[in-house]
């Protein structure tokens, strides 16, 4: 039988259609076969990779534990590299390294496995292919030592921006002081993209966050830190504050103070947030400034900071914020009042019943209810304590006035009883 369809079908259009149908059948059969092959191979492949990685992780972790004989260690490393694929070892290494402290990281980098990987990485980093160089610098980021420093410096001028970026990153790990200068160029500093050819690589926000956290900022002087802080984009300033808090609170406080006075709303928000989460002491004046900020996210964060920093003297200001036009400000102020203890809770309780503003009353009641539902002892005790203290309140002109002394916690008491919570 001949494959020449013209013997059977005279019309060329018919012949074309038949050929298309035959091709379609072949495609479908081929696709089904490929799907089957993938189904057959993939689980085995995944299991093997997982097994290799798990083995590699165990070998790497073993290096951290005992005073291992260097000879045995070297043999182990050699065996691991022979048995597992390099990629599995690298992945395992990355998984372990990123979860370790600096001392352990140094210990691992000095191990035989790391040295073997480094040797391989140095070969890769000299490759003609950019993606091989990329893999090389990625590896050196994890395992690089002083011996790879010179090569990394050379790779900073690599024509491929990804390679030069990771070279800078690797250099920052190998030699923090030298690498820092290079790496800073990649962070979104205003105008840097136009002037620096090396910064053509546009990093995503998450990459920049990772990078800023990676930077050993403690190596910079206070002046350099401030210059860097001023140059950073508003979204990255909070990250820098956080990175500083992680490396040493002392350096962070001036940045937070700087941030509070920033003209950018996001930076002010982040500064108050950082102060709250890291309990950095701010003055009452600084907190008050935040409570009066024209932008509500700043007021909301400042209100939160007041509670965390236990600024008891700011109770009247928080009470004012309960009538704020924004729910978040009201909510944070009410929660901060609860955090401030007895005086705050009493103020909240009073406002929940006698507050002039409907929104203030509502939020006070809501937060008190929540506290009761979560059986907050401080709240219970404060609500049931006698006698009731006089609550100072700032009038619209700023003068303190005395509020009515009558206070009835009848509503709340009834609710507590109804819920069956033991008041004692």
């Amino acid at each position, binding site marked *: 039988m001949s494959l020449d369809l013209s013997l059977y079908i005279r019309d060329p259009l*018919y012949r074309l259609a038949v050929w298309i149908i035959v091709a379609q059948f072949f495609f479908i059969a081929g*696709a089904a076969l490929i799907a089957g092959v*993938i189904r057959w191979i993939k689980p085995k492949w995944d299991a093997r990779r997982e097994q290799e990685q798990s083995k590699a992780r165990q070998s790497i972790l073993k290096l951290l534990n005992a005073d291992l004989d260097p000879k045995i260690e070297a043999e182990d490393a050699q065996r691991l590299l022979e048995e597992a694929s390099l990629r599995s070892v690298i*992945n395992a290494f990355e998984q372990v390294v990123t979860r370790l402290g600096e001392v352990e990281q140094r210990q691992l980098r000095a191990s035989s496995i790391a040295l073997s990987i480094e040797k391989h990485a140095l070969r890769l980093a000299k490759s003609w292919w950019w993606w091989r160089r990329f893999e090389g610098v990625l590896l050196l980021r994890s395992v690089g030592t002083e011996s790879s420093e010179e090569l990394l410096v050379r790779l900073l001028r690599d024509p491929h921006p990804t390679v030069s970026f990771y070279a800078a990153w690797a250099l920052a790990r190998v030699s923090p002081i030298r690498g820092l200068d290079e790496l800073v160029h990649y962070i979104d500093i205003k105008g840097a993209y136009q002037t620096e050819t090396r910064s053509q690589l546009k990093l995503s*926000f*998450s990459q920049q*966050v*990772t990078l800023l956290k990676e930077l050993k900022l403690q190596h910079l002087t206070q002046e350099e830190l401030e210059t860097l802080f001023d140059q950073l984009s508003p979204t990255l300033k909070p990250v820098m504050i956080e990175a500083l808090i992680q490396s040493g609170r002392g350096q962070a406080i001036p940045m937070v103070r700087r941030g509070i006075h920033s003209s950018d709303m996001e930076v002010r928000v982040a500064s108050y947030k950082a102060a709250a989460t890291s309990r950095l002491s701010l003055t009452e004046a600084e907190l008050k400034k935040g409570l009066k900020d024209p932008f509500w996210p700043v007021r909301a964060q400042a209100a939160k900071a007041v509670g965390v920093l236990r600024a008891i003297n700011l109770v009247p200001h928080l009470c004012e914020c309960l009538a704020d036009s924004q*729910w978040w400000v009201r909510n944070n102020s009410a929660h901060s009042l609860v955090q401030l203890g007895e005086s705050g809770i009493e103020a909240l309780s009073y406002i929940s019943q006698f507050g002039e503003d409907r929104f203030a009353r509502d939020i006070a009641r809501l937060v008190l209810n929540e506290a009761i539902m979560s059986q907050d002892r401080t709240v219970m005790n404060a609500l049931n304590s006698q006698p009731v203290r006089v609550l100072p309140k700032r009038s619209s002109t700023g003068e303190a006035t005395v509020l009515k002394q009558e206070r009835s916690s009848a509503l709340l008491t009834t609710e507590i009883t109804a819920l069956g919570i033991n008041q004692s």
Partner: protein
Amino acid sequence: MESIIVFTDWFFLSYFFVLNSAYAMLILLSFREVLVEKLSFSRSVLLEASSDRYTPPISIIAPAYNEEATILTSVQALLSLNYPEFEVIVVNDASKDNTLNLLIERFQLYHVEPIFRYQVKTAEVKAIYRSTLFKNLTVVDKHNGGKADALNCGLNVAKYTLFCGIDADTLILPNALLQLARPFIQDPSRTVVSGGTIRIANACSISHGQIDEVRLPKNIWANFQIVEYLRAFLFGRIGWNAIGGTLIISGAFGLFRKDVVIAAGGYASDSVGEDMELIVRIHRKLREEKRPYQIRFVWESVCYTEVPESGQILSRQRDRWQRGLIDSLWRHRRMFFNPKYGVIGMVSFPFFLFFELLGPLVELLGLIMISVSYMIGYLDIGFMLLFISVSMLFGSMISVGTLILEELTFGLYPGWKSLAQMVAYAFLENLGYRQLTLSWRLRGIWGAIKGDHGWGEMVRKGFGSQ
């Protein structure tokens, strides 16, 4: 007459050629996207930041209307998501069944003051409940206003800047939300919406709101839909995502920036395809404002949903989808072939108009022309059969090609039998099922012309019953 028939012949051939070229292009783009993502060496580097404290908090909004069969399982699954900070807002849209009571009983809800601002207009809220067991669970009970209205209501109550709109019968995998939030972590200033993949939960083994085992259902309708969903998500949406032309983020699983949605006016309560309409509106608004933005489809982020297992309910669903499509395209018709709207106006919009909206009409016209040609003796039956075979086999090629993508990405359905079954359904759907969906879509077009805005009742079996 002959010239008319010749003209229509060429029209159908050209239409067929352009449509299938577009499909081929989409599937190639999908393969490229998946392979790049799979082989990307720097992926682990990007993920370093995704699990840390920069993950933005999310409000999950689940509108519920007569969902007593699935609501507890769904809410349980939502509460056990692996995500640093989130709240779950269930909006009971005046269910006539036991949905609200079940929630009150299971999660020990208590009544709180309804304090929120109506940033988007909705039907009146009757009550708001909080849970004594889960601090991040809020249930809103409101007067009936439809799904879009319920989502808008959730939007008003939501605390956080990002919200995830889902269906109450959606089961989200534990890490899915973290993956869905990835575009927002990587590029917070530009990302406004991200959407995930929907898979079919029928016949899956589910306990405590978690999928224990994925299986192919025995029901024939559900099986056809499995092939359809694979095609829609693995090749359609990944392909569109590659060129930035995403026009649909499924209402069953999408993450949005709240301020952008509020600025766009929230969900359209008078639309039956509110999910697509919102995405088109966001595109339109941001393009008009010349704001840089991106709408991303994250294929790794997976959720499961129950699909209809009877022809009658499925027909209602497809009818509604078609009406939703028509509604969305009609409302934003000025985007059609308008270069001001970039890829959306010049590529996505015309594609959806010509092939998704008008496709059923073209097929109907084709059938009419065949009948007319036969009656007047112009029909070449041999060629017609060959053409229909090529057309059907092309559909099967796309479906089987998608199975490779499925194996490369998830490979969720275990066993050789399930693979053979899926290949068989990829063939069989061309013999009857496709023609049925065509008739339902035509009904949808007719409904849209008549101004039908009904949703049609959707009966759920419930996850527990499978």
